[in-house]
């Protein structure tokens, strides 16, 4: 072993208590950093997951373009008495071609047409208002993973049953509906149709469970008295949800219809996420930094205590950089011990918390081992340790042996 390392090692082990305290500081800072950041990732994942159950990455639709008010003194002005602002048609014209164009983009995984209808669910005397979503079952399942939150019935039956319906668990409970029962839907256009319950889903978001149902696309077009080219929305999923906004801009330019990314559609949730991220990052970095101060303090003390040793070593031919190596080696050793301990501690904490059941929309505590956060923590931890050691080491390296030895 190199003599510098030998000296560093001896200093570390000759004062076990101080070293232990410094290691413990790094260990705690490290584990809290990794833990909190993994938690952050978990929160984001769970919030995204609940968003993506109901929202696609991108929604392409015809934006309401309000007709322009006739300008004063135009030739038509005098013909129309008491003009009103009338919303334009909200259908997508030639949806098949638009779909093909969208699917040709390399980022796009799934694109599926959808027709949303406001309906009343009627069963006997009870009536609930809600939203019925007309879907192509296979494509919609690819997009929302509906099968994963089905609690009863068979999702695939929707394909073979033109008048099948999959209802939220809240509707089923309120109207006492089981698989195979009939339910009557009244649309906003006054159309009445009977549907047969083929499945029940539960998203744990009670507002959705109490109002939402899935039906076949064709059925929803009938409810609206429209033909089979009537499409209000085309939903698109892309391979990287984080890039949805860029792809949306591109789709707007290509199709001429409004394409909205999920972040834009969920601005409140995004703002909350951002806030959470800022707070957790700030707090966890501060904790790591404090651990760095611990190392700095202890090394500063060691340098003061060992000032005679430093002087004689320099007299005997140790260079400034040797002295720096001795003290930085100490800091890094403390750091490495703390980091290893911290990684283990964080793993234990996450393992325990993963098993805690919270219920509701979230279920189990949304935390997982995030390799990226572990790596990030280790790197930041070591960088902080290095500088916490380097500053006192630099001071030690600048000791003038003559000043000390002449006393």
């Amino acid at each position, binding site marked *: 072993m190199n*003599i510098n390392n*030998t*000296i560093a090692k*001896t*200093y570390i082990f*000759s004062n076990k208590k101080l070293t232990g305290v410094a290691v413990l500081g790094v260990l705690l800072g490290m584990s809290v950093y990794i833990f909190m950041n993994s938690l952050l990732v978990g929160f984001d994942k769970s919030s995204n997951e609940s968003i993506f159950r109901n929202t696609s990455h991108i929604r392409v639709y015809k934006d309401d373009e309000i007709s322009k008010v006739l300008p004063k003194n135009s030739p038509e002005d005098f013909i129309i008495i008491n003009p009103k602002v009338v919303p334009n048609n909200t259908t997508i014209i030639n949806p098949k071609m638009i779909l093909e164009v969208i699917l040709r983009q390399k980022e796009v995984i799934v694109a599926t047409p959808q027709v949303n209808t406001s309906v009343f669910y009627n069963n006997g005397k009870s009536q609930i208002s809600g939203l019925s979503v007309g879907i192509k079952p296979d494509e919609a399942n690819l997009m929302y993973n509906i099968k994963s939150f089905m609690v009863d019935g068979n999702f695939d039956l929707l394909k073979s049953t033109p008048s099948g319906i999959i209802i939220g668990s809240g509707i089923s409970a309120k109207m006492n509906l089981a698989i195979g029962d009939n339910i009557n839907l009244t649309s906003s256009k006054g159309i009445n149709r009977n549907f047969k319950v083929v499945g029940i889903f539960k998203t744990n978001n009670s507002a959705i469970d109490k109002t939402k149902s899935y039906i076949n696309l064709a059925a929803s077009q009938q409810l609206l008295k429209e033909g089979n080219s009537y499409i209000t929305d085309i939903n698109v999923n892309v391979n990287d949800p984080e890039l949805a906004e860029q792809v949306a801009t591109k789709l707007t330019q290509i199709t001429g219809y409004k394409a909205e990314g999920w972040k834009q559609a969920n601005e409140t949730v995004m703002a909350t996420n951002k806030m959470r991220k800022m707070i957790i990052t700030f707090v966890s970095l501060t904790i790591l930094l404090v651990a760095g101060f611990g190392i700095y303090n202890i090394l500063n003390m060691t340098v003061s205590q060992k000032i*005679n*040793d430093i*002087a*004689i*070593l*320099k*007299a*005997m*031919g*140790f*260079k*400034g*950089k*040797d002295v720096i190596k001795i003290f930085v080696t100490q800091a890094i050793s403390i750091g490495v011990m703390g980091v290893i301990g911290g990684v283990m501690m964080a793993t234990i904490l996450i393992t325990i918390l993963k098993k805690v059941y919270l219920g509701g929309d979230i279920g189990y505590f949304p935390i997982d081992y995030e390799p990226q956060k572990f790596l990030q923590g280790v790197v930041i931890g070591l960088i902080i340790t290095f500088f916490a050691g380097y500053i006192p080491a630099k001071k030690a390296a600048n000791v*003038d*042996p*003559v000043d000390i*030895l*002449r006393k």
Partner: protein
Amino acid sequence: MKAILKTENVDKFFYQPVEFQVLKNIEFEVKKGELLSMIGKSGSGKSTLLYILSTMDTDYKGKLFIDNQLVTGLSKDELADLRNEKIGFVFQFHYLLAEFSCLQNVMIPALKLGKLPKKEIEERAYQKLEILGLQDQALKPASKLSGGQQQRVAIARALINDPLIIMGDEPTGNLDSKNTDIVFDIFQDLTRNYGQTIIAVTHDDDFAKKSDRIIEMKDGQILK
């Protein structure tokens, strides 16, 4: 006898609190195998001169030659290497590293030099400790020894790289008369039998009288 160390026109100034010339035009030579004592009242500049000779103090005017090589103007790292290889130090206080055993303390400069394998360095360290009559204490922690023994370990450490010169700043200053005699005898033995060159700053007139040559300093100048 050839000169191992030589100075030419060395001047040194202190600027704090007021400008003051500590050394004036110092010119002298040290020959190989000499036991040289530097004496003088405190403030005469003898310690200041020693630290310039040791290459640790580089803030002076004039020229310093060690082993016929001009040392003045070398970088700090070059000087560190030079000290490691060619100069051994013994101070008033032993400056042993308390956490290390005597043997390890003696080995440190040789490990730093890195010319020999560790095994050989250890053997040499034992030899040096034996010369100083400390072979039994080799594995004890340095802090457990008596003052005289510690000073002898420090001398063994100064010897480990077979330096050209040993420089001592009051090497017997903290010792009682018995240990002073022991240290002096060791110095004399080293110069007579091993051809070692030793420069020592001392207050001890007995020590000085017994040495081969005395340089007396007054007001920054060499008297004789």
